[in-house]
């Protein structure tokens, strides 16, 4: 009896809720921590980045207009999906990062727990970061955190899932849409996360995941006029400086480094704008 031939998977981009190959038709080879062939993944082009930003912009309004509790449920649903496929995630995280099985499972577990943590923030962040302000005069004055809009995330190059989850879940929890560039050499867990998000009732386009060459794609994301925030977690110092300079052309908010184990609200605060409303009080 011949052994069953396995069905191999093609790893594609996630743009606007669809899974295209790169419009450029390019792909590149991914190897594991020991240098063995893992898969061919789509190599996104500049055009794919621009398409993803357009998808994110249009999804952001719909994502932000959901009830905050509803957004929380969607992120929790994503955690459920990840839990169901935790074995697959752990296998890919282990291969990508060269971790032993137990270490990989622990990393996936922390990633899922982090999703749950952020899921709970969706309907609390306004109370914690917002305020009613005691001004002089007959005015009711309040401040609320509103999303910056479209956030570009350069995923950490080493931590293939854990740092990525932290970097994308925080801006999603505050109502932003995200365009994430996966780790260049360890992109498969990011692609899996993207696949799971597509079955989590996430508004299509609220999370977009691109795989490809960081050096080619990141400058397009950083200089894009319609990108409001940029997380440079995955950029080396030289590249980070260059990207931050590009971001300055449109006063894009830049976050440089935040520890994924850090329980501060730094990431939640990074891509929100405080909007303050004064309303007259009178008869």
């Amino acid at each position, binding site marked *: 009896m011949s052994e069953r031939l396995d069905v191999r998977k093609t790893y594609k981009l996630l743009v606007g809720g669809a899974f295209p190959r790169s419009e450029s038709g390019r792909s590149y080879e991914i190897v594991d921590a020991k240098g063995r062939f893992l898969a061919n993944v789509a190599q996104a082009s500049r055009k794919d980045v621009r398409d993803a930003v357009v998808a994110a912009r249009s999804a952001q309004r719909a994502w932000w207009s959901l009830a905050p509790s509803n957004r929380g449920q969607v992120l929790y649903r994503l955690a459920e999906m990840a839990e169901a496929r935790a074995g697959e995630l752990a296998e890919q995280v282990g291969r990508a990062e060269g971790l032993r099985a137990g270490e990989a499972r622990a990393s996936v577990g922390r990633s899922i727990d982090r999703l749950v943590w952020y899921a709970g923030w969706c309907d609390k962040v306004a109370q914690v*970061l917002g305020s009613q302000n005691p001004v002089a005069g007959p005015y009711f*004055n309040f401040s609320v955190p509103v999303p910056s809009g479209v956030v570009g995330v350069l995923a950490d190059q080493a931590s293939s899932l854990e740092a990525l989850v932290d970097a994308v879940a925080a801006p999603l929890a505050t109502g932003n849409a995200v365009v994430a560039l996966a780790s260049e050499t360890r992109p498969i867990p990011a692609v899996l996360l993207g696949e799971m998000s597509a079955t989590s009732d996430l508004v299509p386009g609220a999370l977009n995941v691109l795989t490809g060459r960081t050096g080619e794609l990141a400058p397009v994301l950083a200089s894009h006029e319609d990108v409001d925030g940029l997380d440079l977690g995955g950029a080396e110092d*030289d590249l980070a400086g260059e990207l931050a300079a590009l971001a300055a052309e449109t006063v894009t908010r830049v976050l440089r480094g935040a520890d994924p184990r850090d329980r501060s609200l730094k990431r939640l605060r990074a891509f929100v*704008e*405080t*909007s*303050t409303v*004064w*309303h007259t009080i009178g008869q």
Partner: protein
Amino acid sequence: MDDRPASTVSALEYDPAPESAAVARLRESYGLFVGGAFVEAADGATFETLNPATEEPLARVAQAGEADVVAAVAAARRAYDKVWRKTTGPQRSKYLFRIARLIQERSRELAVLESLDNGKPIRESRDLDVPLAAAHFFYYAGWADKLDHAGFGPDPRPLGVAGQIIPWNFPLLMAAWKLAPALAAGNTCVLKPAETTPLSVLVLAEILQQAELPDGVVNVVTGDGSAGAALVASPVDKVAFTGSTEVGKVIQRRLAGRGTRLTLELGGKGANIVFDDAPIDEVVEGIVDGIFFNQGHVCCAGSRLLVQESVAEEVLHRLRRRVDQLRVGDPLDKNTDVGAINSAAQLEKIRELTDWGEREGATRYTSPCALPERGYWFAPTVFTEVAQTHRIAREEVFGPVLSVLTFRTPEEAVAKANNTTYGLACGVWSEKGSRTLWVAERLRAGVVWANTYNRFDPASPFGGVRESGFGREGGRHGLEAYLDV
């Protein structure tokens, strides 16, 4: 009043009620404030600051060079390491309370000096700039010993030395907005006032001496843009800038990859949205406050009036009549509504953009008020028939110039209001609360004033979205800009 023909009203003459310039106690020359002492620039350079209402020189002021900025930053660093970081919250709090009190005690002097150097009406410097500056110190004084409770986690740390660059439109007030939260959070400061308006900040430096604030905790380097550039290039831990979007982008680019914290409060092109149910008399006052306050030298000015088509004719008719009554002239006269344009360069910029307004086909209405012969003046101006593509609808004029556009539906109002790269402030006028909140939710702006405009309070966070900058000044949120959180 409203029913009287305009000619009757304009025939009423007021006797001048000038405040005495002597109250400002002007000196011939002013030095830099470094390490607690007033000093000359290392190379002895100075520049002249003018009274924009007369074009007469007011005083000579030291022009800080690179060496002076380096010395000021070093003084701030020493003060941070040796004194200020070890000063307890309650002590910092009491210094700030002292400063607030001293500003109140010297408020008349500060108000007159501000009006002389800036050109703004004494009514505004007396009733707004100076009291609000004191209020900011009072407000943040109370935070200095309560940082653990500010919502940034336990024991939040200061950043270190802050370099702060402020504009000429509210010199003393902007200094207070910068210094008060920075000091409360435990930072030391090097402050660079605008070239055309250094004087009130130097009197504030004197006040800091009187308050016995430790030497070097606050340093003031006066001069042109080169001093600001030197400050940005220096080894500060934080840069806070208020000014044009153009310069803000340059600063953000220069700091890219450096790890220096940055907050920016930049330009704006605020939309003042008037719905058909709003009370027209209040609306007209609000429009005037929105654009002619401080000669329109306000980053959050309501420079685009969006008025619902069904009431546009009535609103504009009453607005013109009201604009005709604005008294333009001597900033020290207590009757003056609109003072002098701050500088020849700014006047030139306003003229250029308003010329473009006519060239691009908008209809210009200029108040028939008489303007003084000497000094920099620009009569209140309203453009109608403005298209969204016109320069006067897109660019920040920073002068007493209003562009009027119309809309039919709330959706259209929101779309037009958001059709800008800026996002600082907007106004909404309607008696219908649900509609106001619906609009406010959709406006991309850091501040929304509903049935009012240009209100400021130390407890209320102020700042922009998009290309109007990031970071907030005022309120609990304002502390974040100066804490390592």
